[in-house]
């Protein structure tokens, strides 16, 4: 009981992992798990509806009002499907492969910073840990392809892992050029911890995407391209698309095992989007913290979570009102109106917290409001990236495998090396300038002594 | 139970080292021999980092990082040699890799 309440003390700042509070770390882990499950389900729905509307059709409309219950129907179908293991396949490795992929995708959530103390823990090597553990996902794919004991999955697995390994290099170099920017403080000491990176952006008063313009922007663009290739999403999804190699490494997986792969893929998408948001887009910081500062602007920006949910509730309500007034649509209409009511209630709750916590002291409401704001801005930026993933899938054709590898090694790697060198030179421009002056002076002295 | 001292880590490292040595000496599959060599290198690393903790400085950790880099280079070249050999002789049994025998 003491462990439960000791963390709620306002004098305790920091993540539960840093405070040594295991109970609250467990609670955070469960909350993150539940959150990721909700996000994956809604991503499934949003992807199908968005792709459909891009292709001027409607998408799922039957299962719930506007197909809102489609993810649940899909999950139910996958759970009830027959579990087929190919003959001559290695049963143990066949079973372990999706588990490895899932573990690699979910372990990175320990260090994702939703707020300055809203993370499970703050490791000293935060970004290194994230890059390393997400590179363990390659092992899951390789073992899945091998364990299926069939040609197409094996070729798909080898291609997919070659692609992931190639783009990891460009990703790592882009990350390093962002880490260089964290060391532009008085001590010249940078940091690898995720919370430290966002705090460095807060200290320098600029998102790293705008730092040393256009170097930060190019670095983020390289990372954005590489992360799409890392997660095997379009337009880099040759190894796993249904029309190529008959679905690649997860051909022989059906039912619940295939849904584990899907879950791992979406979780990895959220994880790499969080890396991009933390490193370049300022993490949990609201837009314009320096330009539009002050009590008034703080209050206006703290209304955003409530207004977002209010907007969603309004859209759902309008959708319910526009449904055909037919007897067959009665249940769907009632369901959508109930969904709109729930969203509206959440909106009202968030607005109440925003108003009650306005005084910016350490009351419970103010701390709730701060926490909600941090998480909201972080998730909003991650949601922008997730929508970009869906947009890429709808718009661009697939890369052929040799074109894919050519882009990874011959285009992204030299550009990211160049950006890294230029960022380092820009960060040390004072020292380089003085060194150059000293060298010129020394050469001038030598010439004068010779003459 | 007794508190965990660096000696506990040294014992674990010794166990891993001996397992690696057994693997190198007794297996016929070249890839598994290379994996046993990685076990040996890991045991040495664990030893180094345990001593670095004991003495309170970073020399052990820096050396361990260099050993990891070295192991990566060695694994890459060793597996390259294995692939080049496999192309010629279609076998990965160490007993059959005896080109110098008369």
């Amino acid at each position, binding site marked *: 009981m003491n462990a439960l309440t000791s963390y709620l003390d306002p004098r305790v700042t920091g993540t539960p992992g840093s405070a040594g509070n295991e109970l609250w770390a467990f609670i955070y882990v469960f909350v993150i798990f539940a959150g990721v499950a909700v996000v994956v389900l809604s991503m499934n729905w949003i992807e199908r509806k968005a792709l459909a509307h891009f292709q001027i059709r409607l998408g799922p409309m039957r299962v719930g009002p506007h197909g809102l219950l489609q993810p649940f129907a899909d999950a139910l179908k996958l759970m009830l499907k027959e579990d087929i293991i190919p003959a001559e396949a290695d049963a143990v490795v066949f079973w372990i492969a999706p588990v490895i992929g899932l573990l690699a995708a979910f372990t990175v959530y320990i260090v994702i910073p939703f707020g300055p103390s809203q993370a499970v823990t703050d490791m*000293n090597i935060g970004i290194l840990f994230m890059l390393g553990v997400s590179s363990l996902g*390659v092992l899951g794919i390789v073992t899945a392809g091998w364990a299926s004991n069939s040609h197409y999955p094996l070729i798909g697995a080898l291609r997919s892992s070659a692609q992931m390994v190639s783009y990891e290099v460009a990703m790592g170099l882009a990350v390093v050029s962002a880490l260089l920017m964290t060391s532009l403080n008085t001590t010249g000491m940078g940091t690898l911890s995720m919370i430290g990176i966002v705090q460095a952006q807060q200290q320098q008063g600029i998102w790293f995407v705008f730092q040393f313009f256009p170097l930060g922007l190019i670095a983020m663009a390289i990372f954005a391209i590489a992360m799409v290739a890392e997660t095997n999403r379009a337009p880099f999804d040759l190894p796993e698309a249904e029309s190529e190699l008959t679905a690649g490494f997860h051909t022989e997986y059906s039912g619940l095992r295939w849904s584990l792969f899907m879950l791992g893929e979406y979780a990895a998408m959220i994880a790499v989007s969080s890396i991009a948001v933390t490193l370049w887009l300022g993490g949990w910081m609201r837009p314009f913290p320096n330009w539009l500062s002050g009590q008034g602007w703080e209050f206006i920006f703290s209304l955003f979570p409530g207004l977002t949910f209010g907007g969603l509730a309004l859209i759902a309500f309008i959708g319910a009102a526009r449904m055909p007034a037919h007897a067959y649509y009665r249940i769907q209409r009632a369901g959508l109106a109930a969904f709109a009511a729930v969203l509206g209630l959440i909106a009202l709750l968030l607005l109440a917290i925003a108003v009650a916590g306005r005084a910016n002291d350490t009351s419970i409401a103010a701390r709730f409001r701060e926490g909600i704001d941090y998480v909201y801005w972080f998730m909003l930026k991650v949601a922008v990236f997730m929508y970009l993933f869906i947009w890429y899938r709808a718009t661009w054709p697939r890369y052929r495998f040799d074109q894919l590898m050519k882009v990874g090694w011959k285009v992204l790697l030299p550009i990211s090396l160049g950006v890294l060198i230029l960022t380092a030179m820009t960060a040390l421009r004072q020292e380089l300038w003085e060194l150059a002056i000293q060298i010129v002076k020394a050469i001038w002295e030598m010439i004068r002594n010779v003459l | *139970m007794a508190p965990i001292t660096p000696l506990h880590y040294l014992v674990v490292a010794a166990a891993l080292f*001996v397992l690696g040595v057994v693997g190198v000496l007794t297996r016929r599959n070249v890839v598994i021999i290379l*994996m046993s060599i990685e076990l040996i290198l890991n045991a040495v690393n664990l030893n180094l980092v345990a001593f670095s903790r004991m003495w309170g400085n*970073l020399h052990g950790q820096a050396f361990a990082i260099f050993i990891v880099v070295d192991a990566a280079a060695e694994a890459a070249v060793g597996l390259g040699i294995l692939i080049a050999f496999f192309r010629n002789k279609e076998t990965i049994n160490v*007993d059959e890799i005896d080109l110098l025998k008369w």
Partner: protein
Amino acid sequence: MNQAFVNSALNAGAAPIATTFFFYMLAAAAVLSGLLVITRRNAVHSALALIVTLLSVAGMYLMLYAPFVAGVQIIVYAGGIMVLFLFVIMLVSIETTVKDRQFNRMWPIGLVAACLLLAIFMGAYSKGKTLVPDRVAQLPEASNTQAIASALYGDVVKTIQFPNGRYVMGQYTFAFEIASLLLLVAILGAVIMTKKRI
């Protein structure tokens, strides 16, 4: 000398090194999967067991307050070298290797030699038990990366100095450069080895 060292460490108010449960769990996982590495008939099973070993050793590094070495281990070893191993296993594995005899004919001698080695280790450790202190002072974990960066690249060896007073040479800078040269040579070597026609 030994007793004085042990006493000084105890009087420094030091903390124990690791929580007991996690140490025994990770140690058992490492040794058990090490055993699986050397005894499996299938090379892919051995590779998966080696991955478990590498990750448990990374966990032990975390308990030893060496997070940077743990991160390097996960990225390079488990995420890079093991992927390379799995690739090569898939390229060179043929059906006859699984049905062949897996231990060579000299295996009793190898086992006896290894047991002798283990006996030497245990003898050395039991005789030198007093040299290892019970409790050691805690290394600061929150700045481990920065400390290693200083050791590798600056502020320790004060030779080359920038005009504003910042140093760029550390104790291990030279070894760092040689390591990068080693990696370059390894890349070239691996590429040339596996080319079909040089």
